[in-house]
């Protein structure tokens, strides 16, 4: 067959287009779940909330009546369900997530937006460094099978991977902040400082950053190390490895082969784990009073501020999918099966 080189789309592009189509579809489904839930759960929590507000309006008329009106309007109560749905979607895509009840008349998006950088600044470095360190330790452990190093890594990884972030956070806080007084209890910076780009403020932020970072970093390392150890053992047992060994290939090169090949599934694993890492990090933020989205969510949950809770959900899922796409992108670049797929036929 004659194939025209100019018109062939790179397999990397095809892969990425397919992935983004999937993620966008899933995002729609997630939005739909957010829309349906309050309307489908028996006892309609939204209606209940509105009735409560309405009853309070008898005692404290003006302010509450306004909240009530705004809510009725935003949830489109009384309109046909499909109109509500379309309005909901179009608002969500414009970034309008409604008005908070607890912080009325603040917009939900204005409450969440300042929190996102804090969550990302905590999550991204912690996840990437845990992934890197965990994989390196795991690979060495798998390579040095039967050694003392392997046994220590395995047991400590097993325990660390099953230690919830938030409890580790409490322990670190107790030992390093309360007992030894090295780090602050919580928050993202000292209350008496005004956020600015001065060295003093940046150092203060970093000082507050250490404990939340460590709790996520430490409990995430274990899982990666365990996975990488097994993958490396599998890889070392494969035929091409035995062959390389019999050819007398240097140990450092064998280790490199095994490491590179075992890393691919771990990249996929990274994409899959982002969601649960996010969940754990949100709760860690609560323990440290860290002003990220987790803390906002916690405030929303404790006041039953449904627009705020929904808003956090919608924004976090969008962020997660963007991160997922970034991982897919890296994957497409490093996996030769995707990169070279078109050229082999």
């Amino acid at each position, binding site marked *: 067959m004659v194939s025209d080189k100019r018109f062939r789309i790179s397999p990397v592009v095809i892969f990425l287009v397919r992935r983004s189509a*999937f*993620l966008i*579809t*899933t995002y729609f*489904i*997630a939005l739909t*779940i*957010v829309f349906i*839930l*309050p309307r489908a*759960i028996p*006892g309609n*929590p939204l209606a209940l909330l509105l009735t409560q507000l309405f009853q309070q309006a008898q005692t404290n008329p003006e302010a509450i009546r306004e909240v009530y009106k705004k809510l009725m309007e935003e949830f489109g109560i009384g309109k046909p369900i499909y109109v509500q749905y379309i309005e909901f979607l179009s608002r969500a895509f414009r970034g309008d997530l409604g008005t908070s009840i607890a912080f009325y008349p603040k917009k939900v998006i204005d409450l969440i937006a300042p929190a996102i950088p804090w969550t990302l600044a905590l999550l991204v470095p912690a996840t990437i460094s845990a992934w890197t360190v965990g994989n390196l330790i795991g690979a060495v452990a798998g390579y040095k*099978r*039967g050694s003392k190093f392997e046994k220590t890594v*395995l*047991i400590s990884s*097993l*325990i660390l*991977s*099953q*230690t*919830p972030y*938030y*409890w580790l956070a*409490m*322990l670190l*806080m*107790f030992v390093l902040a*309360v*007992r030894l007084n090295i780090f602050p*209890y919580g928050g993202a910076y000292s209350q008496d400082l005004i956020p600015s780009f001065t060295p003093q403020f940046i150092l203060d932020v970093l000082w507050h950053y250490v404990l939340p970072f460590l709790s996520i970093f430490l409990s995430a390392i274990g899982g990666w190390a*365990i996975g990488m150890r*097994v993958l490396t*053992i*599998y890889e070392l047992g494969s035929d091409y490895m035995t062959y390389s060994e019999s050819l007398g290939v240097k140990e450092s090169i064998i280790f490199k082969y095994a490491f590179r090949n075992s890393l691919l599934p771990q990249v996929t694993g990274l994409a*899959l784990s982002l*969601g*649960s890492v*996010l*969940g*754990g990090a*949100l*709760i860690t933020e*609560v*323990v440290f009073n860290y002003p990220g989205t*987790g803390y906002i*969510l*916690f405030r929303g*949950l*404790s006041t*039953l501020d*449904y627009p705020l*809770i*929904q808003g956090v*959900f919608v924004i*976090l*899922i969008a962020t*997660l*999918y963007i991160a997922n796409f970034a991982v897919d992108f890296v994957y497409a670049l490093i996996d030769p099966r995707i990169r070279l797929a078109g050229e082999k036929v």
Partner: protein
Amino acid sequence: MNPLIYMLLRNMRFVVGLSIFMIVVLLGTIGPLIYTKDPLSFAGPMETPPSPQYPLGTDTYGRDILAQLLWGTRNSLYVGLLTAVIATIIGLVIGSVAGIKGGIIDEVLMSITNIVLSIPGMLLAILVASYLKVRAMEMVALLLGVTSWPWFARAIRAQLMSLKEREYVYLSKMAGLEDLKIAFADLLPNIASYVFMAFVLYVNGGILGEAGLSIIGVGPTRGVTLGLMLQWAALMEAVRRGLWWWFIPPGAVMVAATSSLMVISTALDEIFNPRLRQG
């Protein structure tokens, strides 16, 4: 003796893991029968450190922490177990139907699975839980189970897909056996150890998930669990005020339960999985 059991008992890690887990189970099952104090009565003095009368001290409301710990262990194990049952059944059914039937059914089921897999389970569980005024332990387990089955379904499908191509399965097909019979006689026994290991991971997921939901404020609305204990401790700033006897025990029991299960599961993996077996 059965050689498999012999191999297990010779594996130090398995024995240690199993013993620690059994201790946790005993704490939760027999513990409340022996130490019969009411975990939720406001009878004691406020925030006393451990003493002979209160072995693990009391909390801000004067409740006995050891009693809470025993009941909490029992309830957390219950939530974990229930979560695992729910997630394993859903994953097993969807994964095996997709893997055995193939074709269009497979495609539909796998699309659903991939979509659920992409929606972060913990967030979804928090969202749903926030709408429920009353949350029983069973409801929490249901939420955690329903949001966590997809990876297992995918793994089961992949395993069955490869098993399906084995010769003895073809023989059964030629002999005219029904799909269901083939599934139960030829395929499922091969993945039994795998299912068991996934079940163990789901028990852990349920225990840790319950704690996560509780700390953020949407855990069970009645009773006491290890997660609720941590939530109360966090609310009352137990860490900041140095009340270590309040927040260390529930976390320690939780980690003892989950890591011992994990140790058991990896030890089993090394025995069942020939590729990991050491020569």
